[in-house]
């Protein structure tokens, strides 16, 4: 049985929960078992927020796992909090616009990309979360671009459908970002 889990983390307002929901939808569309679970609690504005997505070929074994296969850290606080939770051989995808490019462990894969800046170039800083999903899709090779595009269409409500093309553009820019150049 293949089971992989993902943590997406950042500031409140960066669209972390929504990115997780899009990812979970994409797995559902690919006929996987999937569970999405948010951090919830006495959270503060500007504090960190995260969600976990567990994807499995069988029943999801558990949520709130102690470690993760893939982590997306959209700010420094998330990098600091989660870098120790990545499984050996796992990936951390880091928004280098808001986090330093440091490598405290040598048993994991790092992908540093200026995600916020790339989103600004797309034309809307709010695309940070979806651009990060593009990077995650490429690095993980576990979810297809077409599933994610369909998932975006699922998740974006009718009165916001005008933003769908921009989201898809951000997704593709993330997906096409040159991973090898960042591996040095």
């Amino acid at each position, binding site marked *: 049985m293949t089971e992989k889990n993902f943590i997406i983390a950042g500031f409140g307002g960066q669209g972390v929960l929504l990115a997780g929901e899009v990812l979970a939808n994409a797995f559902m569309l690919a006929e996987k078992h999937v569970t999405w679970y948010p951090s919830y609690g006495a959270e503060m504005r500007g504090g960190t927020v995260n969600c976990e997505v567990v994807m499995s070929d069988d029943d999801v*074994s558990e949520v709130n796992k102690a470690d993760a296969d893939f982590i997306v850290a959209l700010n420094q606080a998330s990098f600091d909090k989660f870098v120790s939770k990545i499984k050996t051989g796992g990936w951390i995808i880091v928004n280098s616009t808001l986090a330093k490019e440091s490598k405290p462990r040598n048993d994991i894969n790092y992908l540093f990309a200026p995600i916020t800046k790339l989103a600004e170039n797309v034309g809307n800083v709010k695309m940070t979360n979806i651009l990060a999903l593009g990077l995650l899709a490429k690095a993980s090779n576990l979810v297809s671009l077409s599933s994610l595009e369909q998932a975006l269409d699922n998740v974006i409500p009718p009165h916001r459908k005008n933003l769908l093309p921009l989201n898809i553009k951000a997704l593709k820019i993330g997906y096409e970002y040159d991973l090898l150049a960042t591996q040095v």
Partner: protein
Amino acid sequence: MTTQCLTNKKVLTKGNYAIAQAAILAGCQCYFGYPITPQSEIGEFMSGKMQELKRAYVSAESELAAINMTIGAVSTGVKAMTSSSSCAVSLMQEGLSYATADQLPVVLVSVMRGGPGLGNIYPSQGDYFQATKGGGNGDYNLIVLAPSTVQECVDLTYKAFYLAQKYRNPTVLLADGLLGQMMEPVEFYDYPYPEIDTSSWALTGAKNREARIIRSYAPLADDQCVFLKKLFEKYRIIEENEVEWEEINTCDADIVLVSFGSTSRNVKTAMKMLREKGIKAGFFRPITLYPFPSKRLKELSKNVKKFVTVEVNMGQMVNDVRLAVNGACPVELVNKGVGAPPSAAEIVSRIEELI
């Protein structure tokens, strides 16, 4: 937060929204509630959808009001519900006792959080006693259903409305913060149960018939004895017919792990991990907490060497398992006070300590 899947009938949705949507599909005509984390999405969803469907949504001034409004609504024969969490369900206990005595099909969704007192908003199973033993006065039982997945939140919400009306007894859907907040793919479908005829007792106006009174007051001692006998005859029928549980790998098991609700997800995984280590473990999950699957546990106790209940509370269901087993074999507890359930790996290591 509820999104459609176009390739099949599945949608990705939160447990709370799944419950609310299922209630609407079950034909719930009236919702009364007061917000409290971690179940506020139920009221939020209802506040929009019920008005759209021209059904009744009332944001009650308190939980006392909400349960009594629900009593009022169901006494007219319609399906109605309220939802709340832990410390606020405490405020509804008087109403639940009255609804039981009045034989009214109240549906209560109880999404557990940390306690006692105000506690906290994290997941918990600390209200097993509150739901199954009750905090109201007198001899009564609530029918209690415990989902473990978002899909079961849908299935058992339907069932809660059906059983409440079938037996004219308050019914509780006992979920927790983990289930309420998580999203999973679910399939909604038409209400699968027959509609119950309420015309013989519902208060629908006395035009062309004798007036009816629904009340729990029996001033004469003998009358109350007769009533209690009748009430408990009903409970005997419920216990006979409505017990539901899931069991896996119990036929050759030396040790059976017993768990309900969201915790049982990790426990099922732990059972598989124990099997991989060569330990003959089985898994048993009560789906109805009342009626409790005591008979089946008693049967299993003839061949099982040990039961272990796994709960996120200080040990509540363990008592019902002990009563069922009645000393035939040891019943141990692996627990955590509050929060997300212990991980499958932790459950495995704590069970290995017990062997």
